């Protein structure tokens, strides 16, 4: 094929991969359609790459959408400096493997002020190092559309968000003034300074994402698989001690515990789950009998400010 083809996405050749079930094919086609539509109509799009499973699927779909060309937009990672170390290594390896431009942005004012989850709490940390940082990056590069991997089944206010979500010059989301979205017709028109967030995975569920990762052999960080990891239990959350910035209380000693992560974020804010699932089959089997949702381990969902208010302020 052409020289421009990005490297194979997995070790398994496309031809030998099983054909996708009908429901996943339909979701895949819908996402590709959205990726192409926004890219064609906006001057300067970007893909928000957060390294997790949803980002991995989104990236895979972007590769498919523009094949045999490359996705005509860069990846942007907002680095809070508190991500799991493995995530950063994985991110760099993926960008290199696919030959894509990767932009990394950190809120250096926040770093200079010493903002972090242990010192400032999750609400301030998220506001400064994620929300503000994201806005800085979008303004810095003048991106007018940002793809994200959010899904409607994740959270109640997400369930009400459009696939193409309009943001004001200040990046604010107004849930009461959303554009009606009909058929497969997306209104991507904006004025200068305004922007769009686009969510090609809106109609996917967590299970769809895992099935797709399995069937398409999409690489994901090994943090999703069970392994003995150094864990302390705080407020019911299993927090992994990923580096020596984590202050330990008197008598608090990390315990080796067989755990994995259902979502990935800043390590001090992301709770692990006890699990023996070391394969995708096992993860999916575990999910099917799980009695808790994936955001259960997210400390930021319980910090007093709702997802809706975070989103209004410009959080993805």
């Amino acid at each position, binding site marked *: 094929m052409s020289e421009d083809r990005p490297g194979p996405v997995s070790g398994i050749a496309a031809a030998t991969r099983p054909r996708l079930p*009908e429901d996943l094919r339909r979701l895949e086609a*819908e996402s590709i359609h959205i990726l192409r539509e926004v890219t064609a109509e906006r001057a300067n799009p970007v893909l928000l790459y957060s390294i997790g499973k949803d980002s991995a699927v989104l990236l895979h779909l972007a590769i*498919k959408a523009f094949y045999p060309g490359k996705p005509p937009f860069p990846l942007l990672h907002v680095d809070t400096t508190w991500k799991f170390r493995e995530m950063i290594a994985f991110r760099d390896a993926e960008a290199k493997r696919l030959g894509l431009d990767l932009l990394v942005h950190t809120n250096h004012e926040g770093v200079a002020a010493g903002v972090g989850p242990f010192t400032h709490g999750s609400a301030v940390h998220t506001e400064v190092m994620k929300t503000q940082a994201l806005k800085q990056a979008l303004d810095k590069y003048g991106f007018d559309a940002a793809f994200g991997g959010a899904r409607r089944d994740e959270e109640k206010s997400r369930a009400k968000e459009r696939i193409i979500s309009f943001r004001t010059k200040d990046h604010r989301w107004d849930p009461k003034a959303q554009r009606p979205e*009909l*058929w497969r017709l997306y209104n991507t028109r904006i004025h200068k300074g305004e922007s769009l967030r686009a969510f090609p995975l809106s109609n996917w569920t967590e299970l769809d994402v895992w099935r797709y990762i399995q069937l398409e052999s999409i690489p994901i960080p090994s943090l999703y698989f069970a392994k003995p990891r150094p864990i302390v239990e705080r407020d019911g959350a299993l927090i992994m001690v990923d580096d020596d910035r984590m202050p330990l209380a008197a008598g608090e000693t990390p315990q080796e515990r067989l755990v994995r992560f259902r979502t990935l974020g800043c390590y001090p804010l992301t709770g692990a789950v006890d699990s023996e699932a070391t394969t995708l089959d096992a993860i999916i*089997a575990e999910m099917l009998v799980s009695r808790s949702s994936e955001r259960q381990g997210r400390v930021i969902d319980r910090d007093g400010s709702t997802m*809706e208010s975070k989103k209004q302020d410009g959080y993805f």
Partner: protein
Amino acid sequence: MARDQRAWDEPDLESKSLLRFITCGSVDDGKSTLIGRLLYDSKSLLDDQLDTLAADSKAVGTQGAELDFALLVDGLQAEREQGITIDVAYRFFSTARRKFIVADTPGHEQYTRNMITGASTADVAVILIDARKGVLTQTRRHSRLVSLVGIRRVVLAVNKIDLVGYDQRVFDRIVEDYAAFAGALGFEEIAAIPVSGLRGDNVIAPSADTPWYGGPSLLEHLETVDAGRETADRPFRLPVQWVNRPNADFRGFSGLIASGRVNTGDTVRILPGEGEAVVTRIVTYDGDLKQADAGAAVTLVLDREIDISRGDLIAGAASPALISDRLSADLAWMDEAPLDPARSYWLKLGARTVSARVVAPVSVVDVETGAASAASTLALNAIATVEITLDRPLAFDPYPENRDTGGFILIDRLTNATAAAGMVRGALHKSSDVQWQELDVGVDARAAQKGQRPAVVWFTGLSGAGKSTIANLLERRLHHAGRHTYLLDGDNLRHGLNGDLGFSPADRIENVRRAAEAAKLMADAGLIVLVSLISPFRADRALARGLLPAGQFIEVHVDTPLEVAEQRDVKGLYRRARAGEIKDFTGIDSPYEPPETPEVRIDTTAMSPDAAAEALYLALERRGVLNPAFAAFDYTI
């Protein structure tokens, strides 16, 4: 809260079909509760979500100590505080047989906008009725909108059946009422189910309290109902989203196949141009395909250099789409700012955006009754039949044939708001080169000279109903009285002006449009125009009405039951239609939508043609059409 395992006891990773449905009902019909019940009883809720729900129910719930399922769906703060649903919410759940995406839409003020949005991607509509209240105005509105958006399968969920003591008579009466009203809406299937969202009766499993109901539960029905999605045997359509040119050796055209099927070797036409080419490759990341069907996202490579850009429509060469810079459409206005016919809007259809103008007057449809009236603007939530002119030719299909190439949005050029959703009815012929000529002698002067008021008396009814007979008698009567008349007869028009038209839905629309335009010109000349035309579709007659000043259009429903018309069968057409020799015959295999509020209704089983003509003559007299004293003013009836 002890519950057994999730509904899918076995991990099922194989193909499941997907059903998208919309729920609609009035405030307090219990929509959110019913959806919450579906999620809860199908075990699609997880423990932490249930814990949150339990806490929320205690804090702001309305069900005392019980779980308030409405809080599951009402996700926005304002909604939870005010106990209302503001916006369309999408919920996901799954059973062993099917995956579901539910669009829950509010039942209050913004209902039209949100309902049309939710319905645009739905396969099935679940219409809720409060068993205590029966079929309400809101029910009629919702059903009409659901029909307008092209949903053909409806579930009538008669909710709160527990509150009427599980009384079968109540259920039967509601179903009967609904069927009587919905007959004209073109639904293929109406499945009525007695349910209680609050108590769970017939939601997941059959209820012991409704032994008289033998049908499936709501969930069983949703699991098995035909999604009615398009098949591959429709005309091939691919709107070009993206011209893929990674290097000098590759040039492909990417898009989602909107309908039909494409094979390598197929000849395709690039619309709105004339160019044709042969498909040499169907490229995907997962390898080239020999064939691809509707719903696939692909990249086509063609055998020759041909000018194609984003927004062009690639169609099967044997079945190209309509092309015009004028079209007629149903429009749902969605913006706070009303329609301004003097302004130009962006129109986006498929992957193309063009400049568009809505021609005034528009024909506004009363969503409650279906009656039409002329207007010069459209307010938020209004529905209308309109004519739209474009700045260049566009390729499209009638909406009932293809949602993707027949649905469009209008975008406000100043605010970028999505101002309206449109559904194409058909193409109108080019008029872009013709300027309107202002004339010095006006309609009033012409009519006054004739001592009458212009009017269009529009006879509609089944073939063989007696339209032409009565119209002919009326014209004789008027002529004898010294009035200036003309009779436009549907059959006669088809020998000349409409000789190029057949009986397909698109041709029928055009047939009516031409007759209406001709009648309009004659009324403008000051004549009393009698039009005798089956004109089976309400919306087309609304269009004709919209062309004329208020009060000039007099709709006469020549009401003859199908059995009677068929028994008379003056021209032997019914016999041939029944034998299958004539297709699309009104009343047999093509619907007739009777007027809901005609100016005059004639029951031909109770009145002779002569008596009918005389009654009409008197009606015209009463309306001042025959009185020159009223000629110059007061067009309202």
